[in-house]
Structures are given as C-alpha cells and as structure tokens.
C-alpha cells in the first residue's frame, strides 16, 4: 500500500480506507487544485433554487384551498366532485395546483437524483425520465380538468 509522506505530496496516490480509492482512482495525477476546480462553474442554479421556493410558496394556499374544498363537499361521489370541478374558478385553481405541484416535484426529484446518482450516463437518463414523467403527469392532469370543465361526462 501507498506510504503517505505528507498529504500534499502524496495526494495523487491511491489511498485505502473510507472511500479514498473510490474518489481518486489510481492513475489520477491531476493536481488537488485542478481536481477541486473540476469542470468549473455551470453558471446556473439560481433559477432552480428560486423557482423551487416560489412554487413552494404557491403550493401553500393552493393545497389549503384544495383540502378545505374537498372536506366541505357534501359527498365525494362522481357527480358531486365533477360538478364542483366544472365551476370556472375551481378549474383555474385546480390547474394552477396541478402545475405548481408538478413543477415543484420536478425540481425536487431532480435534486435527489443529482445527490445520489453519480454515474453520469445513468444520471442523464434518470433526469430525462424525471422530466418526461412530470410533463406527462402535468399534461394529463390539466387535460382531465379541462375535459370535466368543458365536456361534462368523461
């Protein structure tokens, strides 16, 4: 095994223990600073972080409104709920609710994938699937609401 004679000079050497080898595989002679800088700065992240907060704030009143409305409906059979959904403002709020929830969830699940999936191929694939999934859910949700709102029977 590698002898460590001072951490700076031996930094490029593989070292056993606690994930050391996993992090700096053998044959990696890049300088520590080079490794810390890596591929540099992606110049993004603010938008993601801010929209995650905004959508969270939007979800608070929408979720409360949704819960209160559901609880105050006289019954939850199909005709009562669809009649409620078909009212103008109800549809609008429901669509906002579905879109904010899908948006917020997409942003959050994306972070989870980035946190835990480290292989870049698997990560790209997972992120693409996450995006597609949320788009499908959002479109299907909006479509269903509109269908009830405009079409009556579904």
């Amino acid at each position: 095994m590698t002898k460590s004679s001072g951490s700076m000079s031996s930094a490029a050497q593989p070292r056993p223990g606690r994930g050391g080898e996993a992090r700096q595989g053998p044959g990696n002679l890049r300088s520590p600073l080079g490794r810390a800088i890596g591929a540099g700065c992606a110049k993004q992240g603010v938008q993601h972080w801010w929209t995650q907060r905004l959508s969270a704030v939007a979800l608070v009143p929408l979720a409360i409104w949704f819960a209160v409305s559901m609880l105050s409906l006289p019954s939850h059979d199909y005709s009562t709920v669809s009649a409620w959904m078909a009212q103008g403002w109800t549809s609008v709020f429901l669509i906002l609710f579905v879109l904010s929830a899908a948006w917020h969830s997409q942003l959050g699940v994306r972070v989870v994938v980035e946190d835990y999936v480290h292989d870049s191929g698997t990560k790209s694939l997972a992120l693409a699937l996450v995006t597609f999934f949320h788009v499908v859910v959002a479109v299907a949700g909006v479509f269903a609401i509109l269908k009830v709102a405009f079409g009556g029977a579904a």
Partner: protein
Amino acid sequence: MADFRLPANSRIRKGVTHKAPEAAREVRAFRIYRFDPDSGENPRVDTFELEAGECGQMVLDALIRIKSTVDSSLAFRRSCREGICGSCAMNIDGLNRLACITSLHDLGREVHIYPLPHMPVVKDLVPDLTHFYAQYASVKPWLLAETPAPPDRERLQSKAEQEKIDRPAACILCACCSTSCPSYWWNSDRYLGPAALLAAYRWIIDSRDEASGQRLDALEDPFKLYRCHTIMNCTDVCPKDLNPAKAIAEIKKMLVERQS
C-alpha cells in the same frame, strides 16, 4: 449510486484490547479507530483502558497518554492544544469536535474516537484533507482588488464593515463542519462544503474586496454551492460557534438579489 456500505477495504473489524492495570480503581475505555496503510489489513477498533485519574482533562490528553504509555504507533494530529490550530478535529462519540477542547468530564465511561467521517484515511485518526484544502484554495481566500492600496497606510474598513467579517474570519479550517455534512459526504468531489463556502462568503462581504461579483459568479453552480440543503449539521458542530449554514444562505440570497 450513492454508497450505502463502506468499500470492502474500509469495513471495520474487531481490534485488540489493552487492559487497564489490575490495580486500577476506576477505568475509562477508549475505543479508537485504527488503520495502518502498511499492513494491508482492514481498519479495526482497538480498546484502550486507562485508570480514570490518569486520563487528564481533555480527550487529547488521554490520546497523548495512550500514545506515550500504551501504543506509540497511534497516529493523530495535534499542535496548539487550545482549540486554535484546528489539527485535532476528529469524531468523538459521534460528533466532530476538537479533541483538545472536548472535556472528558462531559463524556461517558466509554469514549468512541474515529477520524473525521467519510474522508480517506492516511493512518488511524489522520484523515487526508488534501481535497478539502484544495477546495478552500479554489475560492481564492485572499484580497482581490484593482485599486492599489494607499501608499501610506493599509486599506481601511469601518468598524461596522469589520464586524461583518469578524466571525466568518475566525474559522480555523478544522473541517469539522464539512465532514459532518451529508451533502459533502455524497458529493464532496464537486460540492465545496460549508468551510470553503464560509471562506468564500467572508471575502464576498469584505468591504475592501473588489471581486465580490466574480466570486459570486464562480459559485453559481448546482454542485459547488447548491448541494447545500440547509441540513445545519455544519453549524451544530462548529467548535468556534460559527454559522456556515447562514453564510451559505446569504450567498444564495445575494445570487437571487442581483438578478432583479
């Protein structure tokens, strides 16, 4: 994927027990992580029993006692023994702290001592901090200014301006915070971690520095900065009572504010 188990060569086996002398009245046990890179063997946990009265006041005193009386091969870093050099950071009873200012009186009969979590281990309690230091260097922790300093004196700061950087500048780079941060465990190859981000913040808000903008530019990255999920472990463990989590939140706020 994230690692849910330690790599095979890092799994801990049972170690040896160094019994206290028969005559000992009150015994204290130190269960210490040992790793010898030359042996080719997995790490182990050795138990050192000491007469309680001979341990000294602080965890570091006990470690020095063990090294000088029981096993001279025990490796750990220390220098100032007063909480200012940051060398003796280690994981004591599950918390990252400085051995030299962690009083044995606050700990139980049995004390568990490990190196800082999730770092490559050089030997025993000595972690490899190369990457941690390189990340610190990568935020350019020095004054950047185009305006030359006045020829006859230093660059001045008002009292209020100095007070802003007073606490952040007190960081001793012990790495207790970064190595307690789950985000840093999973993504330290790209996430800068609380210590380096606190240093970046300290220079961003320094009234004499003229590169705040560039510094913010260099941090606006999903990994370098935004892996922080405000878990707050960093602030909980900092032995100097600093608040890296708040510094990171302030950086995020500045990045939003400069957009509109």
